[in-house]
């Protein structure tokens, strides 16, 4: 083994790297910072390295051309040995990476780790989050299928709303007048060269700062951060109650990183790769495009915002959110670190998490989208037609054939864009039904031009039968007051 040491010494005499690496590895960290809560940063780095490796492997087969990308993905899925597994690892790795980066950020926020002197570490972290999301979106584009194609259209539609520069931004983003070959090529360049290059640089800075400034100590309620004294106190703490990062503190990071890699591989094996869905052929319009998991909340938000609020929310919202995140360490750079004494911080995290969670949940079943096939696929349940007259049955036919069902459900089946009509007769009188059908309103199109008087009469006759048994349908107030019995 002597010769091995000699070779090592020969190299180090020239490289001079052993000493700084040993110093970095053995730097002292507060004993209380060696916690399972502190493993997310290193886990994010581990998944990032996995993404680099699997990404390079995919690039061995993938062709970034609008005419070939889709078939090269099919080849990866079906022809190349274990191509499906590498694709699945890369896809699930991206989901895990976004999730871990977000958890890491929440942990850093709740533990006050962004406060003095780690402000810049936080700011670089915000940029790392944005780049991670940029990688997630551009990666979705490289899976050049129907969802990717129409997702680009949505991205272009959002970008076009920027005042004055909108049309130019769209052409710059698409690389031409339409979504086509140049679009895929430039997203390939972004996903494979530009963003990863910046990510590697920023990750190095981020880690370097953690090494130089020291990992955040476990926050104790009541121990306040003061610019004048913090660094001296931290130094004393690592001296008095510290341990070298290697080998004493690193084992939790290693265990968790290995666990995450196993989890990614398990998801990859069990669930398989993502898509590709249908071919990116814009003449196939029988499609309901949906974004990947981490942009589902945005999909829901874009459906639920009032039209007039949408452009300002899309253009101003992200700017405000990013500026808020960047300013955070300057607005509260000192003071309490512990989440136990920062109720507003905890509530903010909860509010954002619940909002995003609920939007994501809603995007899972898209109650705002018409069910395009309900009118021909979901029959009127039998119980609604029991002992009905010929006119009412004709109305049920009109109800189906005029695609009312695409937006209104009956017996839990059908669209949820409009209200369920199981008991509409209790809510609306005959006159109100006629008016609603003909004139529309409250987000319902007017059907006056598409229904003959006979069809309207039949339809309303059917709708009037839709009330729970034993409950009286709505009647004109004037008739009730007059004492006329129905």
């Amino acid at each position, binding site marked *: 083994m002597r010769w091995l040491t000699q070779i090592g010494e020969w190299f180090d005499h020239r490289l001079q790297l052993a000493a700084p690496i040993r110093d970095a590895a053995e730097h002292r960290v507060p004993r209380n910072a060696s916690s399972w809560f502190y493993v997310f940063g290193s886990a994010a780095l581990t998944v990032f390295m996995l993404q680099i490796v699997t990404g390079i492997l995919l690039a061995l087969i993938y062709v970034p*051309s*609008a*005419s*070939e990308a889709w078939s090269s993905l099919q080849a990866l899925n079906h022809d190349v040995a274990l191509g499906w597994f590498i694709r699945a690892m890369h896809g699930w790795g991206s989901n895990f990476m976004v999730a871990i980066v977000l958890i890491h950020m929440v942990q850093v926020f709740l533990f006050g780790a962004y406060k003095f002197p780690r402000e810049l570490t936080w700011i670089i972290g915000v940029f790392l989050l944005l780049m991670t999301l940029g990688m997630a979106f551009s990666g979705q584009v490289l899976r050049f299928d129907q969802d990717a194609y*129409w997702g680009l*259209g*949505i991205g*272009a*539609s959002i*970008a*076009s709303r*920027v005042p004055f520069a*909108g*049309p*130019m931004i*769209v*052409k*710059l983003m698409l*690389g*031409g*007048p*339409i*979504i*086509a*070959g*140049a*679009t895929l*090529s430039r997203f390939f360049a972004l996903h494979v060269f530009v963003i990863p290059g910046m990510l590697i640089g920023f990750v190095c800075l981020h880690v370097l700062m953690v090494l130089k400034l020291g990992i955040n100590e476990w926050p104790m309620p009541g121990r306040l951060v003061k610019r004048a004294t913090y660094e001296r106190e931290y130094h004393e703490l690592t001296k008095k109650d510290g341990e070298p990062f290697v080998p004493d503190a690193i084992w939790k990071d290693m265990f968790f990183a290995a666990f995450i890699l196993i989890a990614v591989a398990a998801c990859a094996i069990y669930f398989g790769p993502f898509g590709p869905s249908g*071919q*990116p*052929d*814009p*003449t196939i*319009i029988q*499609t*309901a*495009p949906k974004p990947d998991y981490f942009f589902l909340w945005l*999909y829901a938000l*874009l459906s639920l915002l009032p*039209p007039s609020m*949408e452009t300002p929310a899309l253009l101003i919202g992200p700017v405000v959110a990013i500026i808020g995140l960047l300013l955070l360490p300057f607005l509260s750079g000192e003071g309490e670190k512990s989440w136990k004494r920062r109720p507003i911080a905890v509530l903010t995290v909860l509010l954002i998490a619940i909002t995003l969670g609920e939007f994501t949940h809603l995007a899972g079943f898209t109650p*705002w*989208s*018409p069910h*395009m096939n309900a*009118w021909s696929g979901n029959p009127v349940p039998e119980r609604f037609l029991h002992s009905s007259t010929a006119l009412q049955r004709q109305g049920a036919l009109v109800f189906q*054939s*005029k*695609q*009312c069902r*695409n937006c209104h459900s009956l017996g839990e089946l059908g669209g949820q*864009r409009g209200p369920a009509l199981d008991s509409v007769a209790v809510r609306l009188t005959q006159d109100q039904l006629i008016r609603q059908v003909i004139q*529309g309103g409250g*987000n*319902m*199109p*007017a*059907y006056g*031009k*598409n229904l003959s008087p006979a069809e309207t009469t039949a339809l309303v006759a059917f709708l009037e039968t839709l009330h729970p048994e034993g409950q009286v349908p709505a009647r004109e107030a004037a008739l009730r007051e007059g004492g006329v019995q129905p």
Partner: protein
Amino acid sequence: MPDENLISRRGLFTKIGVLFNGLVAVAIAVPIVRFLLSSITRGRGNAYLSWVPLGRTSEFPEGETRLATFRNPYVMPTDGKTVDTACWVRRIEGDQFQVFAINCAHLGCPVRWFAQSGLFMCPCHGGAYYRDGSRASGPPERGLFEYPHKVENGLITIQAGELFTPGASAALIGKNPPCAG
């Protein structure tokens, strides 16, 4: 003692070196920026737009709305199927036509025509439009985008070539086509 105000030979060359590099950087940056912006500059003055035939008018029955497809006039070798574009053609009567973009005016998803209820519906965020393309309900702020079109010698032709987006297409929409049918 050298005079502190006096610039040394090496100092002067360093300054000239910085200036020289700056000039070279600008000279190289000009073609780089022009290359990067080529997709914008090329399209100036609607250069991307051309008149594209959709088919004979006899293929479109009066009073009906039919899906038509055309090849985008601006094509690159690697575009594959992406240059094939769909649009909705409504023949009102005679030579009176309306040609709608497939893209929803909200965020660009492909709208579908439902002849029975006379509505275009969007599968993404629930926008709906009447048969004449005007907004019926949902998040869109306007009606469907319309291609300028003309009918000549029994052939319907549209002016196409750019993706319709809510912000970008305002200029195209306001203009009257030269010989609208």
